[in-house]
């Protein structure tokens, strides 16, 4: 097992306020969430519900106004306090999978994936080996030397997942990862995320509007007006 899940991700009483005084907007209100290593949860909600704000807080891109967040074994935020190097935190402890794959167009598939460990100081050969292992696990090893523009949408998304996993982060944030894909490919991506979560003991939070994949989650967080509600999902097995 190469994962380093620890406690996965836990947030307690998280809130985020934009602006101040009369114009202040409370985008998140006392959000609580916990995702265990190896678990895939859904985060759903209408536009303007606070989904993006929560994702940015979880991704250490913006600072919450209050609350605690723990990633793996490390405390990230605690009511105004935060770890010093958020950039290194994002690099080492958080994997991102976007709606569009956003692969670096001038790097081939292997280097797109290997770039993260290289940025973390892993020697190039070791980083490429790690990338190839993941590409093999995701069944795109045959496109290792291809440029992103030469890949299909599904292949690009698998490469993006490999990039999200390559530094063995305790948590992966997937923002609408199936939006550009047809049903078959969308299900394939969800299956891959589930497999990877189990294999690498990674907590995965999938932000989605996609009705097709919502029944696949065992736990779902609904967010509306900055408040989350947890509910048990169908957890339907994928064929």
């Amino acid at each position, binding site marked *: 097992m190469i994962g380093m899940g620890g406690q996965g991700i836990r947030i307690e009483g998280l809130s985020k306020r934009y602006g101040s005084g009369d114009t202040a907007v409370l985008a998140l209100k006392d959000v609580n969430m916990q995702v265990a290593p190896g678990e895939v949860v859904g985060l759903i909600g209408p536009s303007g519900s606070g989904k993006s704000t929560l994702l940015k807080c979880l991704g250490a891109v913006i600072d919450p106004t209050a609350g605690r967040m723990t990633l793996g074994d490390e405390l990230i935020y605690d009511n105004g306090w935060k770890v010093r190097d958020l950039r290194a935190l994002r*690099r080492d402890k958080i994997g*991102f999978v976007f709606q569009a794959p956003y692969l670096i167009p*001038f790097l081939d598939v292997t280097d797109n994936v290997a770039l993260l460990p290289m*940025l973390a100081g892993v020697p190039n050969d070791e980083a490429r080996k790690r990338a190839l292992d993941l590409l093999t696990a995701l069944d795109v090893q045959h496109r290792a030397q291809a440029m992103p523009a030469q890949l299909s949408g599904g292949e690009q998304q698998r490469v993006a997942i490999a990039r999200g996993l390559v530094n063995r982060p305790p948590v992966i944030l997937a923002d609408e990862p199936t939006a550009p894909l047809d049903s078959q490919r969308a299900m394939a991506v969800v299956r891959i995320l589930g497999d990877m979560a189990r294999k690498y003991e990674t907590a995965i939070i999938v932000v989605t509007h996609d009705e097709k994949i919502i029944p696949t989650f065992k736990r779902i967080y609904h967010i509306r007006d900055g408040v989350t509600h947890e509910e048990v999902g169908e957890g339907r097995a994928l064929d």
Partner: protein
Amino acid sequence: MISLAGRDILHAWGKFIFTGVGLGLLIGVTLTMAGVYRGMVDDGKVLLDASGADLWVVQKDTLGPYAESSSLPDDLWRGIRGMPGVAQAANVTYLTMQVGQGQRDVRAMVVGITAGGPGDPGWPPQLVAGRQITRGHYEAVADLASGFRLGDELKIRRNHYRVVGLTRRMVSSGGDPMVFIPLKDAQEAQFLKDNDAILMQRRRTEANPAFNRPGVPGLLEAVIATQTSNSSVNAVLVRAQPGFAPAQVAEPIRRWKRLTVYDRPQMEGIVLGKLIATSAKQIGMFLVILALVSAAIVAFIIYTLTMDKIREIAVLKLIGTRNRTIAGMILQQALVLGLIGFVVGKISATFAAPIFPKYVLLVPEDSIAGFFALMAICVLASGVAIRMALKVDPAEAIG
């Protein structure tokens, strides 16, 4: 760590090469402009070298013979020759004019030289073909840049001259090729009028009772003779005896002959500081404008290339790429663009220089200075793009 800049350049090499070539042509123009200035300076020095003089004796209080007109009696050289420390003294005239050959004419500096031989002041120091002038009239030695060849017949005013010798790089400070002719011919050419003008002047003189007095035979003829002849030269070129410093020789000439005397450094100051100063400033302004245009082009290109990658930069920042890695990528691309531009510019300037009508002297120092200036411009120009890239919010990758 892989080179992000290198990968991006390889990925979009066509864009970089074509942009670099465009920038290179601009750099080529810049280097050529610097070469034009160097050529003008060199032409000025060649003019002074060609005269073979240590001192230039000219009309008092003038900057002659190159920067201002100067007129001296042509017998003055004898007195100067007798001054202490003077090894040789020779009259010389300079006249820039159109020299005809058949249907075409060439702008040239006609130099009148005294009878003597190679090595005398004013004489062309060496020839690349033919021989020096040996006859007192109607022979010429021309510079190759004039396009004249041995045996060609030239027309200066009304007289015809045969080209007997050819020189190389004997030009005026303006880059006009020199044509050497005997002094007497040159003196005549300076004031030679057409027949109608001579006739009209004679009639005017005859009608003047002051010159056509009854009972004073020969006065009218004498006046007319002085009107149609020229006994002036532009300068006396002096070579100092060994062991005498030019300044030491110049002082008694100034004091006792009441003339203005310039030594080599002073004459260089006049030629470079007065004759080509305006042109040099003009070229300097062009160089500044070209540098600014180059900077603007590099800045625009790098800015555009960076703008095209905003999303990728946001992703790179989100996944933990250091700011200095992103800044380094943009800076390296700007420097590579500058390098391509410099290589193309240097090659284009080298091939274009001989085509220019005026002498273009490309010196390595200018190329080295140009290279470092271009690199500095690229660094500065990439600043805008780097600033913009560093402002990109990693949150943009999330949406």
